[in-house]
């Protein structure tokens, strides 16, 4: 578990440096998702960076595509592409687009960024997995603000209709969306009850507590004939005091030199990860 926490800290540092270099991006929602993504890529999923198209691999879809710095950091750390590429994020001719592009970035399973669509795409993958008789699992991470999209609830109905027990949706419930708190923008509570009403298994965890994330994925595997949703309570901007729970750091915003230094100091006090 310690190793996973260390990995998460490393990913957070990469996320901050990438966005700093890019000059724009979505730091808040990337940092809130880091621990979940860390557990998926470094513990939970059966994937092979040497063979990214291995047909039996588990699939991860980042439906909240704007949090892609966290995904890119995990993919680079996992060896899907050189770490130095991380610093080309959002720049011209880069393989790292501002929102995930499956055609240019190795390891990205679906092009996402328009909210709600990645969730449906993950449902399609899970449905196809059942259809062709493969037993891979599909994980999809949604933002809480994303739940405003009607498509999400179309998908929620569809996934339980088809009894997609190979599908796990994780809600990065950091309480903030682009402009303001969810409750002020468009209140979707009671949330867990909504998913229950759509006939999903529901789990509720602290999305920064790695043992809880691991346990939730293990439990989801044992649940049959229904999809599972993990409502993960998180903090937007997690790990950086001046970003935490502050709508200002949703995006498109990058830390300046001074802010980056403070943030990295807070994370582990160690030096920058160098641009190899």
């Amino acid at each position, binding site marked *: 578990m310690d190793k996973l926490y260390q990995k998460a800290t490393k990913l957070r540092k990469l996320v901050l440096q990438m966005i700093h270099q890019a000059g724009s991006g979505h730091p808040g929602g990337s940092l809130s998702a880091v621990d979940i993504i860390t557990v998926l890529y470094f513990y939970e999923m059966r994937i092979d960076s040497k063979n990214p198209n291995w047909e039996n691999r588990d699939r991860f879809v980042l439906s909240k595509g704007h949090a892609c710095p966290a995904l890119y950091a995990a993919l680079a750390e996992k060896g899907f592409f050189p770490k130095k590429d991380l610093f080309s994020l959002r720049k011209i001719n880069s393989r790292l687009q501002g929102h995930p592009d499956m055609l240019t970035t190795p390891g990205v399973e679906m092009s996402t960024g328009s909210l709600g669509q990645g969730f449906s795409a993950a449902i*399609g993958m899970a449905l196809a997995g059942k259809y062709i008789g493969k037993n891979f699992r599909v994980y999809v991470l949604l933002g809480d603000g994303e739940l405003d999209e009607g498509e999400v609830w179309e998908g929620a109905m569809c996934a339980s209709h088809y009894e997609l027990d190979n599908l796990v949706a994780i809600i990065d419930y950091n309480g903030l969306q682009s402009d303001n708190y969810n409750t002020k923008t468009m209140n979707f509570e009671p949330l867990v009850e909504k998913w229950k009403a759509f006939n999903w298994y529901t789990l509720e965890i602290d999305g920064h507590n790695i043992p809880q994330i691991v346990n939730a994925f293990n439990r989801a595997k044992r649940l049959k004939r229904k999809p599972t949703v993990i409502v993960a309570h998180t903090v937007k901007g997690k790990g950086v005091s001046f970003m935490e729970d502050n709508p200002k750091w949703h995006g498109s915003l990058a830390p300046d030199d001074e802010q980056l230094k403070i943030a990295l100091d807070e994370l582990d006090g160690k030096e920058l990860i160098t641009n190899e």
Partner: protein
Amino acid sequence: MNKKMSLREAFGKALVKIGRNRKDFVVFDADVAGGTGTYHFRDTFPERFFQFGIAEQNMFAAAAGFSTLGITPIVTTYAVFASMRAIEQVRNSIAYPKLNVKIVASHPGLDTGPDGATHQAVEDLAIYRAIPNMVVISPADPVEVEKATEAILDYPGPVYMRTGRSPVPIIFDENYKFEIGRANTILEGEDVSLFATGIMLHRALEVAQYLRKYGIYCEVVNISTLKPLDKETIIRSAIKTKAVITMEDHNVIGGLAGAISEVLSYYEPTLMRTIGIKDCFGESGEPNDLAKKYHLDRDSIIKIVEETVAIKNKFMRGRKWKDLKIKYPSLLAQVEE
């Protein structure tokens, strides 16, 4: 041209026929299988038919995810929903990542009839044409629908294909060859080119045959692929006749008229008239009555053809096709590239 069948029926039957030989595709439906013709497939291959309910956005994006596993989803609904309700899912989740999803929509244009304007898509071709990576097809008769269905399954990438609701005459025989991106010259003529797409082709042929008796020779070209457009056939025909008329059951903005204008204004500015829906919504009514009211019927077409030929003769008097051909050798070379 005596037997009739709707393009949606032809599509449904083609799915079953093709489905017996190839297992590499499935069909997605949003509770309109009776309307799109896919009920034939549903009843024959229930395990390869996926019902998504009345929820098109989820259906289209799910098709994107499904296709990544190597099985081709043919996503079916009405053209209004395929081109507007869920178009952003098509754009971002299917076209942008160039995924192998086929979108086949029925109920296009005034041919949709009594359901009225809400269900008559007059914009679908324009919308799909403007999306990068999309192939856009509008077959003319039941035979072409079957051939095109097979062809789009062989093509690796996103395709939009329009069928039709009302019975139309069977024009082609089994030897007809459909190729994505190729326009077929069905009838040769010197006086005017009729570029028709979809169900307008049989009207174009009817008019062309009628006018022959009066000494007007129409060239009839079937533009069943609107994108990529067969520029060469179009330009050659325009150079030959020096007058073109586009014919579509669709808004004259952005569809076939737009596509032909884009090509000819660039390579071969030509006298041109458009037959289509003149930037307005339709209404309820039988397709033939609507065609008459909105000037897509035989008599309206004849009138436009005669006018166009008269205008051409006024301006082009004394100039021969042969002279024009000599005048544009570099252009032809450019087109042939």
